[in-house]
């Protein structure tokens, strides 16, 4: 089967062109992966093409790159899936990383961020004679995050990182969750305090890119959301993010739908005047165009059913936790 790969090339020694697209057509098996095709190109067509790989079976995490615009493990992506109609397959280096050459990127920033969350167990008390033990369910729950192979696919496609290099980003945040949710770790509150700062859990846009990109089902975004909840439970309720969530939930509970006029006000706090003034020009412009939520927010019919349901669900959940 013939396939054409359109590869984003870059060579720091080539002073003429900053980067360029190069097409390669190779003959591969129907079952071939994008990585198989790239290796074939390197071995038979153009030895100057650089890429990184090792296990070829989605274990080592070294072959993450963008295929048709989204991050994938090249060894885990079938040619027939990437090009159902036989069209060209676009292959680019990962996003959110400096390119070293062709498809090889510098992973320094990735590892710096992982280091930033102190990714090791910090238990308290005297060291036990044997091992530090944990309940089975807790470890089963953590197995999902522990299957991360540090490939960086999630980080490549993170929309928040794209606009802010300080964002701790999905892989390291998922790693942080691995310790936040570990019953043996004694630094939970300290960890949450750090993650609650700017560039941490509240800066995630909930865009699902990392969930979609992860080849191992780690679902970093879901872990970040779980940490938001844990941070609020640990008493970190003063951030804009925490207030926004609380105000949002209150609004649904009391009227069945969102009160958009009051939501931003509650989020920044009634008395946070400087921040509130910040809404001024935007609010004013909206008002002039008649683009404004209703001043009188009418609840949905039979809203008492909704309020009762909120109470009932919470009571059930409370009982289950005990």
């Amino acid at each position: 089967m013939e396939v054409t790969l359109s590869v984003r090339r870059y060579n720091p020694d080539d002073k003429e062109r900053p980067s360029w697209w190069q097409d390669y057509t190779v003959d591969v098996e129907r079952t071939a992966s994008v990585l198989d095709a790239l290796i074939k190109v390197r071995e038979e067509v153009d030895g100057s093409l650089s890429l990184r790989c090792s296990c070829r079976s989605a274990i080592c995490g070294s072959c993450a790159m963008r295929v048709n615009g989204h991050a994938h493990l090249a060894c885990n992506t079938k040619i027939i899936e990437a090009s159902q109609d036989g069209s060209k397959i676009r292959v680019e280096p990962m996003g959110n990383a400096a390119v070293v050459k062709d498809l090889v990127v510098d992973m320094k920033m990735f590892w710096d961020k992982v280091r930033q969350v102190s990714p090791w167990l910090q238990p308290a008390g005297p060291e036990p004679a044997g091992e530090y033990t944990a309940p089975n369910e807790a470890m089963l729950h953590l197995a999902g995050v522990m299957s991360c192979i540090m490939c960086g696919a999630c980080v490549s496609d993170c929309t928040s990182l794209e606009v802010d290099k300080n964002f701790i980003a999905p892989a390291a945040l998922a790693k942080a969750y691995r310790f936040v949710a570990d019953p043996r770790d004694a630094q939970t509150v300290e960890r949450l305090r750090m993650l609650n700062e700017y560039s941490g859990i509240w800066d995630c846009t909930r865009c699902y890119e990392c969930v979609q990109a992860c080849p191992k089902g780690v679902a970093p975004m879901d872990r970040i959301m779980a940490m938001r909840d844990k941070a609020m439970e640990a008493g970190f309720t003063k951030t804009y993010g925490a207030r926004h969530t609380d105000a949002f939930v209150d609004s649904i509970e009391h009227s069945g739908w969102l009160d958009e006029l009051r939501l931003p006000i509650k989020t920044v706090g009634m008395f946070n005047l400087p921040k509130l003034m910040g809404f001024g020009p935007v609010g004013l412009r909206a008002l002039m165009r008649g683009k404004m939520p209703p001043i009188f927010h009418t609840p949905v019919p039979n809203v008492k059913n909704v309020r009762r349901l909120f109470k009932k669900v919470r009571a059930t959940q409370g009982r289950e936790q005990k």
Partner: protein
Amino acid sequence: MKIAFWPGCVSRGGCPELYPAAKKVAAQLGYELDELQERGATCTGAGVLQEKNQFLGDVLNARTFAIAEKINLPDIMTICSTCQGVMSQANKRMKSNPDYLAKVNEQLQEEGLQYKGTANPRHLLWMIVEDIGMDKLKTYVRRPLKGLRLAPFYGCYIVRPSGSLELKLHPEREDSLERVMEALGAEVVDFPGKTRCCGFPILTINERNSVQMVVNHTTDAKDRGADAMVTPCPLCHLNLDGYQPSAMLQANREINLPIIHLPQLLGLAMGFDPQDMGLKRHIISAKKVLTKLQVAA
């Protein structure tokens, strides 16, 4: 054809121009809407409630689905990418796990409701590509959008995660917006940001980052020659339109790219009065679009 309709909160709140435009367009397409909010349906939780209490979110959406089943209209039309994504995810969790569904239903019992698992929430955009089809859609066009260059902007929740949105089963959903724009006679301006985040969810948390996303998408589309951007998501609209003035300040350049709701675009092509489509209610004036179509604003 009778159909259940869930307009979402934002189409009646921060983007009040969307709700009447969508209703007019749906009627023209032959849909008779039964509005679920009038029957007591609530906000989907928009993913915000879910980050605190996913079960509660699922119960609320099951309640909406049960209300739709009760009136024998399990097909639900949505007009918001976020509502769509949240409803699809909740539905997936409940339909794939009968024990979980039973647990959810226990909560609804008191109100005499039960979700049987037959609801099928779909965005108007999907209904157009799946039920109406491009050939039929073209017959509604009275004012072809000839010469108009449009950039699509989907909104995260209508493209990810692909599993709960059943994109493998319905590959036509993936380029639905482009196909509708073309059927209406417009020219598509493709750009990589079309499936990225608009920034709205972190607006009150990190305004600079949020506005930077507006900068990136609007300037990219504009520099590729777009006359306007089209979105099926009112939350994206809030940020891309409402915060474009802030984006121009932050980027220190002129942008002024009109952001059009999908139903407004359909309405324009159907020959409706731009006034009825609420096109005057945008922060970034849509006048350029009307001029290009030679319609009086």
